[in-house]
């Protein structure tokens, strides 16, 4: 299927660009680790694990925002975006490629951050990790689209967090719930529902956001 081939080519391109430029992933990694250290000092003595899980999710969302803010930067240099939009491939493939690449970076940062969290704060079981994965998908899906919207205007660095944060509230509920609740399945289902709805919406509406006619 040419659609999948297009997505593969686009994702590969994003990974390659990041491998060469190396500005997004190191920043995300450093940010999430620094945040965890800050949390150690921010949490008062004797706070339960639950508070730590809450803060973990704050760290995840803001790390994702960092990655998303840079998501479309390679396309903005030399106005490559126009080149992609003019290509005969389905525009939604551009979104899929970008979402997969951003997801890859977020997961890469978390591969380091999550063990660090488990070491410094509280253990993470399978449900918590499943929650992280599902929420990552949701935030990258929605975030790629919103970042493309924001990129067309001014004050895009300010705008992106404003657009993403309200939409990430259900994700945080799901993620924290999966980590601390004795019945994590409900929360994982919530995350799956979110991903289903918003990934489809983002996929379908990307074309409209990046074209004028």
């Amino acid at each position, binding site marked *: 299927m040419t659609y999948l081939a297009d997505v593969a080519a686009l994702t590969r391109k994003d990974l390659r660009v990041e491998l060469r430029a190396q500005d997004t992933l190191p920043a995300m990694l450093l940010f999430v680790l620094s945040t965890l250290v800050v949390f150690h000092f921010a949490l008062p003595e004797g706070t339960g694990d639950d508070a730590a899980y809450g803060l973990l999710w704050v760290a995840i969302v803001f790390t994702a925002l960092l990655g998303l803010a840079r998501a479309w930067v390679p396309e903005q240099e030399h106005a490559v975006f126009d080149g992609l939009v003019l290509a005969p491939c389905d525009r939604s493939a551009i979104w899929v490629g970008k979402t997969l690449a951003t997801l890859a970076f977020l997961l890469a940062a978390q591969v380091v951050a999550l063990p660090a969290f488990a070491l410094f704060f509280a253990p993470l079981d399978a449900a918590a990790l499943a929650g992280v994965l599902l929420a990552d998908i949701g935030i990258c899906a929605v975030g790629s689209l919103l970042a493309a919207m924001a990129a067309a*205007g001014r004050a*895009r660095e300010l705008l992106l967090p404003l657009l993403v944060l309200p*939409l990430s*509230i259900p994700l945080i509920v799901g993620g924290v*719930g999966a980590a601390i609740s004795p019945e994590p399945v409900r*929360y994982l289902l919530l995350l799956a529902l979110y991903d289903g709805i*918003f990934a489809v919406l983002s996929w379908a*509406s990307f074309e409209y956001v990046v074209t*004028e006619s």
Partner: protein
Amino acid sequence: MTGALSWIRGLPGLAALAAGLMGLALLFSFFIAPEDADQGISQRIFYIHVPIALTAYFCFGLGAWKALLLLWRGDERYDLESYVAIHQGTIFGSLTLITGAIWAKASWGVWWTWDSNQLVLFLTLFLFYCAYFMLRFSLPEGPRRARSSAVYALFGVALIPVSFLAIRLAEDFIHPTTFTRDGPQMTGTMFTAFCVSWAAVTLLAYVLYRVELAGKRLHTDLRELREVLE
């Protein structure tokens, strides 16, 4: 620009009707409906608060519908209609938060409670739609802005059920549920008061929507006229 003022036709009549109906609603709410045995006079705000909340949802829904029409049919007139609907929705949304806070204060002595699903959901939506305006004001006028706003408006409507579910789930671990607020069991008169109120607030919202839309259309047409003459 034939029929330019056609959208104003009938508006004064509608406005008068809305005003009249609102007066009637207030009459019902504060004088005619019986006082609630448990909560007393503060319960009366229910007749205002719930219709306002429902109307806010309705406005957001209308905004999303117009947004869908914009994306589907490509007619830019829907952009303004969607924007005005969401604007009204935000206004009624903030009124929901305010009346909700008043009710909370009157009933439980606190201005805000995280235990109220309704309020938390509204806060989330309120933040979401505030960001709508930030998005709109950061983009230059044109098809991009119209389309991005429309897509965002649709996301808002999708967010409502998902957020509601999330907040329901979140009850379990964020706060123990100490306050419950079931809808009051409504007697005949209470139900009538509620319906009158709901009809009044909905009509009021519709009139405000039409008025704001008319004002903005007039402004746009005037600007276009000025440009043609340049």
